Each structure stands twice: as structure tokens, then as C-alpha cells.
């Protein structure tokens, strides 16, 4: 049975078993590879996307459970038109290997949508499910503060 997913504003027809996780539909079926596979058990946050604006681990959301519009890192901004949060990431030179950063940015974007001026403690609380093995955390925190300022000025 075919299902229609709305991803980054575009409808995609998907004909797959109900239990296939959204992560693999995005990556292997639709070709949106910005969302990363890290653990498959919601322990690292690399696969974070938004469903109706809410940050979710796409490795845990089955096709039949996708309840709304999906936004991935590709839908946040492009190299030519980056969102404030991405510009802040560049300004702070956050990424090292970069593999976890799509998930970090999606988590941060959802935090900023809910809380336009998060404190360090609120950032820590929101971001603790997102693992980074390079140790970019302090620059992530600084970038979130910068993004908050940029979004207020905009």
C-alpha cells in the first residue's frame, strides 16, 4: 500500500512495509542523505528530524506512524541560503568530522523554536541526547546562543 509523506514541503509517494523506519525511507528510498544513521536505537541523535516541528529520532518512527510534515536538514537551509542556526554553526566553526551535526542542528532548531533564549542549562538539557565523538559541544552551545541572537535581530 502506498503512503504519501510530505517532506520539506514536497509530497513523496512511498510503497514500503509499514514498519520501515522513516530514517531509511529518507536516506535509501528518497535519497535525502543529510539525515544520518548512528545507532538505530535512539541513543545518539544523529537521525533527528522534525515532524510538525517536533524533534524526533527518525530511526524510531515507523512509516505508518509518521503523523505530520517532515523536515530534514535539507529543508532547514541550503549552502546558498542557510538558516540562522546554520550560519551560527559556520561562524563558530562547530563541525569536526561533521557526521552528528545534522542531528545536532535539527535538535537545536527545535529548541530555539520553543525557547528563543535558552540558558546553558536549558541547552544542555535539550541537547544531551545528541552524541558527538569529536567533542564539539562547547562550540555547539556557543552557536545556539549566537543563533538565538541572530533570530531575535531578524
Amino acid at each position, binding site marked *: 500500500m502506498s503512503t504519501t509523506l510530505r517532506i520539506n514541503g514536497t509530497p513523496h509517494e512511498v510503497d514500503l512495509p509499514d514498519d520501515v523506519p522513516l530514517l*531509511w*525511507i529518507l536516506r535509501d528510498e528518497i535519497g535525502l542523505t543529510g539525515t544520518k544513521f548512528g545507532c538505530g536505537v535512539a541513543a545518539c541523535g544523529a537521525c533527528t528530524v522534525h515532524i510538525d516541528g517536533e524533534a524526533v529520532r527518525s530511526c524510531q518512527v515507523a512509516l505508518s506512524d509518521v503523523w505530520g510534515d517532515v523536515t530534514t536538514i535539507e529543508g532547514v537551509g*541550503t549552502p546558498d541560503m542557510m538558516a540562522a542556526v546554520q550560519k551560527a554553526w559556520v561562524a563558530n566553526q562547530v*563541525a569536526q*568530522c561533521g557526521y552528528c551535526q545534522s542531528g545536532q*542542528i535539527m535538535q537545536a532548531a527545535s529548541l530555539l523554536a520553543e525557547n528563543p533564549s535558552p540558558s546553558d542549562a536549558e541547552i544542555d538539557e535539550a541537547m544531551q541526547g545528541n552524541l558527538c565523538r569529536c*567533542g564539539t*559541544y*562547547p562550540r555547539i*552551545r556557543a552557536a545556539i546562543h549566537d543563533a538565538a541572537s541572530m533570530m531575535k535581530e531578524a
Partner: protein
Amino acid sequence: MASLKKIARRSFLIGSAAIVGGVAFGTYKYHQPAPNPLAQEDGRAVLNPFVFVDQSGVTLIAPRAEMGQGVKSAWASLIAEELDVDPAKVTVLHGPAAKAYYNSAMMSEALPGRGYDGSALQHSLGEIVGHMAKFLDLQVTGGSSSMRDGFERMRHAGASARETLKQAAADQLGVSRDQLTTEDGHVVAPDGTRLPYSALANAAASLAPIEADLRPASEWRLIGKDVPRIDMVAKVTGTAEFGVDVRLPGMKFAAIRQSPHFGVGKTAFDASATEGMAGVDKILDLGDAVAVVASNTWLAQQAVDAIDVTWEAAPYPETTEAIFKEIARSFDATPNSTMRDDGDVDALPDGATVIEAEYRLPYLAHATMEPMNATALYSGDALQIWAPNQGPTVVQKKAAALAGLDVDAVEVNTTYLGGGFGRRIETDYTDRAVQIAMQMQGTPVQLTWSREEDMSHDVYRPGAIARYRAAIKDGKAVMVHGKIAAQSTTVEGAGRMLGLPMSGPDKGHVDAAFNQPLAIPNFRVEGYLAKPMLPVGFWRSVGASFNGFFSDCIIDEMAHAAGRDPLDFRLELARAEWEPAAKVLETVRDMSGWTGKTPDGIGRGVAMAYSFGTPVAQVIEVADEDGQIRMTNAWIAADLGRVIDPKNTRAQMFGGMAYGLSAACFGEITIDGGAVEQENFPDYDALRMHTMPTVQVELLENQPRMGGAGEPGTPPAAPALANALFDLTGKRARQLPLMHEFDLLI
């Protein structure tokens, strides 16, 4: 040449004997250039293996793996410094697997010397050993060696390309070359005429390369400055292509299950449960593994999990305890190495106090964020591979052997690496992709390991035991005798990489134990090699990852037994041996406002380790918060001799420490029934944003040689934390991970 090749191919001697031999062979082949792997095409001037210019502009080749250390940007900056281009305005490619891209600096780390006391002889030996990398086709990223390797070579590549372009312009303008200057991708004539490099490509293509002297440091525009990373925008927009992101027309996806018992195959195999499962294309029997090719990775994974397999029993001790018993047994044999033997450790002065300690560190996984993966397409007479890898020539050679092809028929495309840490110097994951592709002729297949497969089929940092006997007298260190036993990363990991048996004293095994810049009159370090059990390999900082802990912890124990301030105690020993080591200690003392006293509920520890050419000192502060221990602050001082990009280097130091602290707190690989017990991040966690201390990093440039950046931040992390916990609780941690003995914030 013949004899060098013969010896090198038979067995790679890692000890001093090989170096003496190496000198005798002379130098005549070393200076023959390797063939340029870049094709000279119409309209394209290939000025050397690292620079080409065509109508679209300048392209630089940075043939080192970008695994987060910023090498792509830093390498390009070295070329750009002399070539007068803006790194942000040129294209930077990884380039193909090729001999021309060998790594000369990494091999010199195999020299037996202490490193910090490098003499002229040591230096020239280093050159020769480095050249051996060319014979061995070693294009690898590791050993914190990229900048040391590229620092002069890449500036020469840039300077030569610049002068060749100037010559092309000189011919065109009818002026002499020395009347021309260069700026931002243009040759500038005396009358101000600006010729873009791209317009000179055709003319430059026919010229022979011209050599030029390197510019003095006073003229540098990029080296020593923060240069924005050229991969940053791609990495924050999801457009950077990692290994798992390769997409090819008609591509299929594969999942794998390998024997949980290393080195053996299976006794029974029943795939009937997978029949009719959605998306399944093919079920493959790989002998010691099974794989499924399907229309997406998850469907392949479901199917491979459904195969019923019985595996052969493990051919090594089946529990962690039994494995460590075997490691301890290696102390009974004669040592493999005694790389330091100053004074007499058996003759103690009267009245000396003896301290004895046994330390034990676990096996560790790399746990890169991007699980092992590779994509391969086999066409019968050629093989293409796309992989996040640290050694393209190694991948190429292994794949060619597996597929029965000439090396030239194997093309290796290196993508971004979602972390490396030494894991991706191996070829097990590319070999698996090749095995699968060979059964899927004409169809590109991407193999992605599950996280569980990745964690339970790593090449692990060896578990290690150290037995130390030390002595103090009148508040001074008078003796240290360390014995270190573990499986050998050199014998096993380097042996796999080079395809050669390794013999001789293993320096890597005792690195950061025998060569610590500390003046102790009676100082001996012996290495003992345990037999192969679990597969072991290169893990960020290699031997220094365990020896840094052993050799610093014993110093801390000595300082406390002597009633001395642990920082002052180290400082005195360092000052008498090597000034740059003393300076990093003084710097963390000043940065942290170290007084040697901490209030109740706060603990501080210091550690210093010299590895990969760089002395690094760290102070870590911990706080007891209602019974839970949190790391609050950390300070790092490192002396790299020359810092190419300060911001990026600080990130490496911080990241190295974070990697070491993660392992110190939570990391352990244990074995039961011959299989690894840890499966995923919940069993093998790392520091997260809320558990990471606030860190300050200071970079010094006191030492005369250039040190590494990627690895030396790791070794002092665990001992600094353990020493801080001792200061806080009075409990001495002689085993890791610390979560077993301390209530750490998680």
C-alpha cells in the same frame, strides 16, 4: 634498493636493527619521484601531483582523510600559502589512491628514540624510514602526522606551481619571470595587468616544473592563522558526502552479520526464514559471515538478522578474566623491549620508600559516529570502491588481492569520514563490500554495518596491565621500573596494514612510558607482548592511550607518598629533562590557578604526557554535587612547536581530551562466551554536552620540532581525571572505566 626491498618485504623490523640496516642501504632510490597520478588533459595544467589548473580555476589535492581534524583545510592552506590563492576560492579534492601521496612522517614514528631528544642522526634516520613509506605504498592518515609530513612538501608544491604559472605568464607577456608577482589566483605584471591562473593553464601545461625557495615565516598569510574550514558549509547543510551517503544509479543496500567469535567461521546456516521477506534481493554466504542485499539498508538488516547461523567456538580465552590472565602470563617471558634503562633500578639507595602498583585497562572500541561502511561496484575486470578510509593504497591493495585484479584495476574514492580515530586504517569493512560486490557483478552495493556489528567487530585498543615499582627518597623520585603487558598493536595492526610480519622491539607498545621527558636517575621500562586474542588495532594515540595512564599515575602516587605537590613534583622532573615539558606544566598551573589546595567537595588532578612529538599537560577539576561527581573544569597546555591553524588545533586538543575522558569514564569492551558483550551506545557511552567540563586550551611553540595534534590530547586525560578523583575522594583508581568505582554524573 634490491636488498632494502627484500628486507622490507620479508619482515618489517621495527627496532633499532632495521634503522642501522636502513642507513647502510644508501639513498639512491628515495629521490626518484613517484608517478603523478593526475591525468594531463586538454586545457588542464597538472603542475604537480598536488596542483592542477584549468579553465574553471585552481584545484588542490589534499590526499589525507578528513575525519574531523580539518586536514583538508590545513593541507590546502600549506599549498595556498605559496601559490597565492584563497583556500575558500579553490576546489580541494582528496584525489586517487597513489604512491605520490605517501606519508613520510608516520613511518618515522617507528624509530626507537625518545623523540623529544631528537639528534641530527635521529633526524636523518627519520628521513630514511619515512622514505620507506613510499616503497610500502603507504598513503595513510594516522599517527598525528599529516602536518609534519606536509609542512614542507606542500609549500614546495605550491611554490613550484606558482613559479611555473609565472613562467607561462612571462612567456606570454614577453617579460622575465622575476618581474612578475602573484596575488589571489592571478599573476600580476609590472604594469598591473592581472592574468588569472586559469587563463595560463594551457601554456603552463607544456612547461617543466620550476622549483623555488620557500617564503620565510614573516611573509606567511595563512600559516599560524585561523582559516575557516572549507568543509564547514557542507557539514552544516547535510550536503557533505560521507561513505554512507554515496548514491549510484541502480545501487542496492547490504547488511552483514559476522561471526561473533573472531577468526572462525560457521558450522550451520539456515536462511529459510528470510525467504519472502520484503525487499530482499540476495542472501550471501561469505564463509565467516552472512550478508543480505536488499532494496534498502533496514530491510537488508531485518533479513540478515533472521538467518539462523551456528558459529564455531572462539579459538581464544572466552571471558575477559581469562584474557587478562593470559595478558598477565606474558610477564613471565623475556621482555620484547627495554627501551629505557637508565641507572640501576635494582640498587636502591638506603632509606628509599618503595611504591608498588598494578594498573589494568580494558579493551576499547573506536565507536566512530559513522558506522563502518563501504560501497563497491565489480564489473569483472575492474573494481570501484567508495569508502571513508584512512589508507586508500592499503584498501586498493587488499581489494585487488581479494578480487584477483591488478592494483591498477581498483579505483578507490575516499569520502568524508564520520570519525576515524584509527579504526578506518583497517580494510575489513572495504574487504566485506568487495566480497559482496563480487557476487553482484554489475550492481553497485553499499554495505553498512549496524551499530551492533560495528561495536562487536572492531579492532580494539588492547587491554593492558602495567606493574610498576617506584621509589622516592627525601621527597625526590629516585627510581621507576615499569613493565607493560598487552597484545601488540604493531604486530597485529601494522602487520595487517603492511601485509608483513613485524619483528623486533615494539616501540609503539611502550610509547609514552619509556619516552616521558622526566629526569629519573634509575628508570627502566620493559614491554611484554601478549599473544593475539581479540583483534587489536590503532586507537587514538595507540600505545600512549594506556601508557599515558600508567606512567603518569605512578608519578602521582610517588608525589603523594613523598608529601609533595603533584604539579611541582612533575615540574621538577620535567625541568631537569626537557624544558618544553616543564613549560606546558607551568602553563596549566597558571591557567588553572593551581595552588595545590582544593576546598572540600572539589578535587583537582594534573597529568602530563609526551606523545606523537607533543608534550601535553592537563588539569581537571571535579566537584561532588550531592554525592554525584561532575567534571567542572579542565585546562590544557600543549607545545606543538609550530601551530598551523590555532582554532582547529585547539579543537583537536579538546577533542582528544574528550575522547580520552569518555573512555576513562565509561569505555570498556568485555567478553563472554568468546563474544563482545557491548552492542550499542547505551553499553558504551561517551561524554555528552551536560557531562563535558568547561575547557580552556593554550598552545605553545617552544620546542624546535613540529609535533602532532590529533592524538597527544588523549593520553593525559584519563590520568588527570583519576588523579582529580583521588584528590576528591582519597580513592586511587588503578583500573578504568571509572564509572565502576565512582558515582559519576551520567
